[in-house]
């Protein structure tokens, strides 16, 4: 019956309840859509940067990340490697060897370049290297050629079938010079990478630099990108010696997180103000309502209703009202977020160009992460329940004689 009273009380002043309800719904709708857009964009940005660079987690030679040189490459222990691959949270391991060298062609001067020795089949499988191909094919142990980033190919005036010369330093001071046919050209999107990257077959680069069996890193492909910390803890038990490190993308690219967090903070500040405004609105309603109901509370207290039950009823009333608003806001936000999740907004103009430069797709997909709904729905509910403590305090202080005196 208390719930019945609370429910019916909501409809006593339909207009006021409706205004409160819609303002809660609107605030929540706005908060969810905004966070959905932000989170969706960040997720997209994160995953495109991560996929284009480090992957989600790496197994590296000790200290490699601080001073990335060929001399710090390492020889993965084959037993440990098997154990990592056998872990249920790991899909695959991708060995990579990276080095710097001077590149030259017959018909132009030299350019500095970034050599990546990879297993192209795996890079295609997990990082879609094949989709970046503009012409030719990926390097492998049979074709023994190099895949050039398109910007680099242009600078060196190299085309498919031409020969490129690599002049560099190998492992521990060895020289590393070689001649390779250009077998593929790829567009790497990111402007810096696209002006410098050369892909070779891993074995070929190991042979060229004399780093036999060595890799800079094994990229760990996790089953789920949301449980990296737990996965890292598990894998650390396998790699228990000091000669190699495990690094998550957060550790390798803290500046990426910082940039997003700075941006996110701006959005949260707007939401904070929004919640403040709505909070004052709800408080106004509760204030009026409590003042109006005082004589009634006086009667209820007189006839023997305990203060606890009265407080509970008023708590339920506010809770139900904001819950209605919360449900309304959530349900309204869902189709819009879902629409832009599956049909991301395409950016035009400057934004488009800028994002493409950084290797991101110029799309703003919305996130459908249930956490957004849960978080902001709860915030709204907590705000209104906290505010309804005003009514609770009033009820506990109420003197029936004064309340009924007019």
């Amino acid at each position, binding site marked *: 019956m208390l719930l019945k009273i609370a429910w019916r009380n909501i409809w*006593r002043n339909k207009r006021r309840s409706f205004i409160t309800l819609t303002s809660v719904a609107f605030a929540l709708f706005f908060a969810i859509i905004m966070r959905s857009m932000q989170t969706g964009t960040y997720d997209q940005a994160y995953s495109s940067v991560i996929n284009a660079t480090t992957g989600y987690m790496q197994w590296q030679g000790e200290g490699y990340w601080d001073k990335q040189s060929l001399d710090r490459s390492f020889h993965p222990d084959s037993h440990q490697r098997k154990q990592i691959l056998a872990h249920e949270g790991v899909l695959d391991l991708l060995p990579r060897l990276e080095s710097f060298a001077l590149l030259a062609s017959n018909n132009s001067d030299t350019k500095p370049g970034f050599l990546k020795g990879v297993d192209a089949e795996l890079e295609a499988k997990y990082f879609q290297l094949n989709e970046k191909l503009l012409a030719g094919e990926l390097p492998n142990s049979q074709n023994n050629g190099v895949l050039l980033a398109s910007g680099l190919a242009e600078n060196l005036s190299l085309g498919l079938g031409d020969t490129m010369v690599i002049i560099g330093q190998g492992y521990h001071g060895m020289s590393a010079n070689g001649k390779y046919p250009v077998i593929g050209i790829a567009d790497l999107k990111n402007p810096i990478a696209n002006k410098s990257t050369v892909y070779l077959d891993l074995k070929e680069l190991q042979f060229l630099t004399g780093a036999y069996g060595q890799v800079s890193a094994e990229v760990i492909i996790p089953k789920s990108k949301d449980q990296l910390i737990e996965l890292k803890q598990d894998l650390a038990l396998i790699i228990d010696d000091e000669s190699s490190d495990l690094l998550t993308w957060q550790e390798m690219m803290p500046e990426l997180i910082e940039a997003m967090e700075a941006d996110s903070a701006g959005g949260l500040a707007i939401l904070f103000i929004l919640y403040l405004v709505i909070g004052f609105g709800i408080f106004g309603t509760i204030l009026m309502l409590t003042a109006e109901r005082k004589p009634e509370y006086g009667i209820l207290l007189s*006839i023997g209703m305990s203060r606890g039950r009265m407080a509970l009823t008023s708590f339920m009333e506010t809770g139900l009202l904001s819950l209605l608003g919360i449900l309304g806001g959530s349900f309204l936000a869902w189709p819009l977020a879902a629409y832009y999740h599956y049909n991301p907004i395409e950016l035009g103009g400057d934004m488009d160009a800028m994002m493409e430069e950084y290797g991101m797709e110029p799309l703003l997909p919305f996130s459908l992460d249930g956490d957004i709904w849960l978080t902001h729905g709860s915030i709204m509910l907590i705000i209104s329940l906290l505010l309804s403590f005003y009514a609770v305090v009033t009820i506990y202080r109420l003197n029936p004689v004064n309340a009924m005196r007019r």
Partner: protein
Amino acid sequence: MSVIETKKLSRIYQDGDSLIHAVNQVDLQVEAGEFTAIIGPSGSGKTTLLNLIGGLDTPSEGTVTIENKPIHQLKDSELINFRLKHIGFVFQAYNLIPVLSAQENVEFIMLLQDQSKSARESRAKELLKAVGLEQQMHKRPSELSGGQQQRVAVARALASKPSFVLADEPTANLDSKSTEDLLDIMHRLNKEEGITFLFSTHDQRVIDRAERLIYVEDGQIKSDEKK
């Protein structure tokens, strides 16, 4: 044993610098089955006296004993529970919960006493019938006349089987027909069910029906006569 007994009961209000003796040294006894009116001019202390007897207000001095229980010693929560179990209240206005039907209003008291649904329902119907509202049971207070609302309030006051019913000017907002009807009902309940009524009024028609008249002025009992 008296149902109600007050000794040297006083209630002093502070009004700025001056003190108001709203109730001043009142000794009063009410026995079971009485139909008693407290009368006196406006501001004489009737409401304050009833509030003290009903445990709604705290005495400045003196004692209130209900069925041998000194209620002025009870804590707030004990007092609320005591009121629920032992005292029926009818106020001048705004008695009922506006969002509940007549029947639900009567049931509400029994719900607070944790009575079963079936017990609540049958007693509520019985009581509403006794006050002549069997046709109006499902109406909300706003759909009832002032007189009907007061009759629901009487039914509600009786729902908890209280020791007595306190009614502060129950007819103040009623026309003469409704006043007569309400008095008839209260009188019949008093005669047939032995319910003790203590009410305040300054309405001559009500005074005429009372069986004991306690006249107060300036917070003091000036006369007390049984008819």
